[in-house]
């Protein structure tokens, strides 16, 4: 029996999100993961950008920081460099992380700085009313893609991997247990870790694309998820429209805060402080 409320700022409830929005499911999975890891609330710093998903930290009893659109990772980088003992978790949307924030996302991955990014991918700009996002699938509709999206979407996880992240995973709001486990692993991992959480936005995406309610969209996730092991045996055509879930990358690489620590240790051993 897990008591979520120990982590909630109850006076801020109910959540601002729409009925059927998947963000709350991801949020709960994250809380279970944090709880399993027994991290003290004081030791968590949760940083978000701007967007529906980015309103999340305000509801949680951690050190919470709601920054500017796309920049959460830069603030988080400053925090982590200064207080490496904090678990710094970044909450961000597909637009926040990969549209305006794309550069910070790939650079944090390159540095492999020890942040955990929970990326709420709902394929749309929810907060501003349903404009096309870098992850809106080809031909899908959005308020600024009234004739269907003519651009190719990012494969966020692939991008994170190519940029240098040491841990990349994907799961759906539907499979909240898998999500919880992956978030747990991501937090445990020392290095830049990304969990791409696929989450329905019935209000601005589902409705316009006739994909129904939150329930319908979760059912879609259920029917179209493929574990990575199985996906590896499928060809590109079979994978069309599928959501590949599981751990996509897990590797050891130099982590930038640790490398910096080595430098600090070197000089503090030397005792050499000049001015």
């Amino acid at each position: 029996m897990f008591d979520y409320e120990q982590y909630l700022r109850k006076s801020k409830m109910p959540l601002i999100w729409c009925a059927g929005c998947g963000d709350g499911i991801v949020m709960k999975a994250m809380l279970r993961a944090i709880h399993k890891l027994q991290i003290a609330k004081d030791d968590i710093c949760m940083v978000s950008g701007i967007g529906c998903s980015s309103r999340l930290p305000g509801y949680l009893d951690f050190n919470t920081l709601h920054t500017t659109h796309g920049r959460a990772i830069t603030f988080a980088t400053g925090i982590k460099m200064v207080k490496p003992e904090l678990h710094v978790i970044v909450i961000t949307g597909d637009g926040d992380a990969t549209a305006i924030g794309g550069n910070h996302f790939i650079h944090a991955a390159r540095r492999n700085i020890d942040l955990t990014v929970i990326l709420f991918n709902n394929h749309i700009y929810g907060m501003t009313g349903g404009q096309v996002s870098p992850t809106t699938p080809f031909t899908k509709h959005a308020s600024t893609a009234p004739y269907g999206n003519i651009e190719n979407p990012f494969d966020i996880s692939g991008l994170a991997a190519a940029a240098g992240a040491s841990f990349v995973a994907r799961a759906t709001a539907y499979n909240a247990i898998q999500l919880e486990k992956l978030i747990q692993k991501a937090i445990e991992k020392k290095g830049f870790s990304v969990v791409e959480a696929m989450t329905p936005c019935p209000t601005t995406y589902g409705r316009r694309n006739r994909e129904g309610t939150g329930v319908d969209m979760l059912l879609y996730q259920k029917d179209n998820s493929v574990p990575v092991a199985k996906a590896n045996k499928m060809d590109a055509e079979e994978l069309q429209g599928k959501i590949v879930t599981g751990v996509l990358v897990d590797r050891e690489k130099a982590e930038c805060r640790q490398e910096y620590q080595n430098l600090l240790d070197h000089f503090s051993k030397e005792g050499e402080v000049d001015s």
Partner: protein
Amino acid sequence: MSFRYEIRLSGEGGQGLVLAGKILAEAAAIYDDLNATQSQSYGPEARGGASRSEVIISDEDIDYPKAVDIDLLLALTQESVDKYYQDVKEDGVIVVDEDNIKQLPTGPFKVHKVPVIRLARENLGRALVANIVALGVIARISKVVSEDALKKAIEARVPKGTEELNLKAFETGMKAYSEIE
């Protein structure tokens, strides 16, 4: 003498109050050849939709597009009536949703209770058209906009295929008001 008539439609996001306001404004400005402005206030986020929609109708240029002295307030929730009844002017009118508003405001204005949401749900099968039912009530009360103009504006603004339903909703509203009169 010139006139300025102020209507505030209030409730919660998703109740179609912006659309109702636009229909009112369009009826007045396009079909009745008056001047009209419609404006809204949002919650903290754009997405949530407006919970307050205001229409000013006048036979002159409209300077300030927000309500100063409300002639007619529609309130679909208790919260909205509590928040706004004080802005209604002397001799103004408040229309409240009969089922949702338990606590009626008191003051130098008239209050009408109409079960607009229930009428929409029960008589028309779609709670969604409560906003248009409300327009029917407003048409009868305010008299600044002609019923004919309102019908034309409704036909022009509602989603294709729902014209009939909405016109029926409008009639329902007018009738409901006539009954309580």
